[in-house]
């Protein structure tokens, strides 16, 4: 009688969510993500040489997908003589995608899947603090406000302007409101910065007596008189915007755009030019009202006012090299006034804001030479979180190492026999190979 082949036991189907769980919790995924992070850090660092820090950070770290790599630039950054252009189309996950996947991986693999015993406590703390650090990065990315306020001696300010975020502001200049309060309508940069090369978009609001069309946005430009120039560019009030090469330092770019104001009640549309370094807004009269439209940096409110009482500059003897810049300020909160000193490496930290001494200027104001101080302002809710995360990581790793050392020292007899059998060693069982 022929032998009957035994029927294999039925394989239990693994549900999809379990498969996903294993995938996202796997050590392999963590390795792949870290390799990609290394790669984009390398490429971003090389591209920064010719494309500038701001653009490189946006392309490699603030993005979900990277679609091209400027290989020619990367070669030149590595001192390889190559003069041509070589943009390689690729599809690499960007920093945001990698960070999100790494967070998922850390939570699932390093916090949930890991065996929770006294022995793995240090490892869990380490993974937890790394997750915390990633969350700190996300909070900083979403909520961090950074900019600067420039104050002449005697001047008071309770606002600061972003370094990078661009907006268009519309303010009614005349007649001035009876209570003296001023408001501005704000169009965020993300709504018009795509309007390059002939593209246009119209912005409307029921309280505005006109519609505003924004078109032909330029990242770096200069207004030029059209008279005597041969230009194919659009001309508004005798001027046109000349395109300039983008600066590596993004904050040095002078962006501009054309606008067309169309009154709602009929009448002739008016064209104008917005330019970030303009001395005054583009003004338009509609009926009895005058509106100012300006392209500017996003303005943030400070929870207190700052008055610059004195700016002191110390230089190294016989040179113009800075030794120490100091701003003597008064912090004003309601009726309360406090004298404060802001100097190099000694910021003012208050109410979640940090004000750093950044730059100075000497210029004319009202016919007299006046010193001005520029204070960099940072408001980051997760300002100190990375420090706490690092301390927790160190504590976790140190705790794990000490625990391993204690266990090793407590088992001298088994050390000689089991030292060469890693699969059976007690220490091997405490770390989870499936966890990053």
């Amino acid at each position, binding site marked *: 009688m022929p032998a009957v082949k035994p029927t294999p036991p039925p394989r239990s189907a693994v549900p999809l969510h379990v498969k996903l769980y294993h995938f996202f919790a796997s050590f392999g995924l963590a390795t792949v993500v870290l390799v990609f992070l290394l790669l984009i850090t390398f490429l971003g660092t090389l591209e920064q040489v010719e494309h500038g820090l701001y653009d490189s950070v946006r392309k490699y770290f603030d993005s979900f997908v990277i679609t091209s790599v400027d290989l020619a630039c990367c070669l030149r950054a590595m001192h390889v003589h190559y003069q041509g252009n070589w943009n390689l189309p690729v599809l690499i996950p960007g920093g945001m995608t990698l960070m999100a996947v790494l967070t*998922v991986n850390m*939570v*699932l693999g390093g916090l949930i899947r890991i065996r929770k015993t006294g022995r793995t406590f240090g490892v869990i703390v380490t993974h937890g603090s790394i997750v915390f650090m990633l969350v700190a990065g996300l909070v900083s990315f979403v909520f961090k406000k950074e900019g600067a306020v420039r104050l002449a001696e005697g001047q008071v300010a309770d606002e600061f302007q972003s370094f990078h975020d661009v907006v268009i502001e519309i303010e009614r200049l005349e007649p001035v409101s009876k209570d003296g309060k001023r408001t501005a309508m704000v169009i965020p940069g993300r709504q018009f910065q795509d309007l390059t090369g002939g593209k246009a978009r119209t*912005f*409307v*609001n029921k309280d505005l007596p006109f519609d505003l069309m924004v078109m032909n946005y330029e990242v770096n430009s200069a207004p030029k008189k059209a008279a005597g120039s041969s230009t194919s560019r659009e001309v508004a009030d005798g001027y046109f915007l000349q395109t300039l090469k983008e600066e590596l330092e993004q904050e040095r770019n002078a962006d501009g755009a054309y606008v067309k104001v169309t009154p709602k009640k009929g009448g002739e549309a008016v064209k104008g030019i917005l330019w970030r370094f303009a001395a005054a807004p583009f003004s338009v009269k509609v009926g009895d009202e005058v509106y*100012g439209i300006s392209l500017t940096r996003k303005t943030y409110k400070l929870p207190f006012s700052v008055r610059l009482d004195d700016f002191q500059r110390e230089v190294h003897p016989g040179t113009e090299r800075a030794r120490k810049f100091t701003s003597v300020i008064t912090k004003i909160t309601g009726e309360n006034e406090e004298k404060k000193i802001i100097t190099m490496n000694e910021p003012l930290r208050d109410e979640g804001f940090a004000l750093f001494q950044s730059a100075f200027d000497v210029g004319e104001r009202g016919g007299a030479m006046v010193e001005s101080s520029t204070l960099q302002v940072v408001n980051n809710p997760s300002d100190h979180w990375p420090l706490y995360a690092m301390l927790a990581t160190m504590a976790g790793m140190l705790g794990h190492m000490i625990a391993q050392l204690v266990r090793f020292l407590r088992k001298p007899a088994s050390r000689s026999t089991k030292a060469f059998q890693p699969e059976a060693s007690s220490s091997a069982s405490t770390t*989870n190979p499936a966890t990053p």
Partner: protein
Amino acid sequence: MTKVTGREPGRNVQQSRGSVLTGMGMSMGISAGLLLSSCERLTESMEIKESRVISEHAIMPKAEATSAERFFDTQQAQPPAENPLAWITPEGWTEAPAGSGGGMRLIDLRFGPNQEGECYLSIMPGQAGGLAANVNRWRTQMGLPPYSEAELAALPKKTFVGRDATFVAFDGDFKGVGAEAAATGFRMLGLVQEAPEFTLFVKLTGPKDLVVKNEAAFDQFASSISLKR
């Protein structure tokens, strides 16, 4: 025998399914939030939804500024820098049109029926070559041989801006800088004052008769020069 550990996948999932799903949901939520926050549908027409209150400390911009003003294209002539010196212009003397004398002239005056007399104050940094070089340069302009050291040492002094200055007076044929031919019968008066950081010159030239008539005016002008307070 299969070794069963706490890391056995099926068992772990069974034990902690709730927390797994919570963790996955939280992590995916962060990722989805990131993705959604960065996406905004841009349409042909958009409503302005944001506004802000402008600080009471913010400077009110100029309404109805012209494009030239806005773009710093006014190209208006800058007002001349204010002269740090004060002086009395002698009667009958006039100030020369700006730029007519050239060089480093802080005061530039003319006199005479046809404005042929010229008197100006100039300043040069440092020693400007020294007293001998400058006096002898002037003598050369008048067609005269240079002074010896003894003659230089014997030159008279006059008080000028509170200090002693060397005074010179020459007659001859004056050929100023850039002139094609020398003007005959001229007289030159001059004061040279050497200060540690600069040298001041007052130089007067003109037809001899005219200069002689204006020698008192020259002294009056030189003694009137002072720094503005």
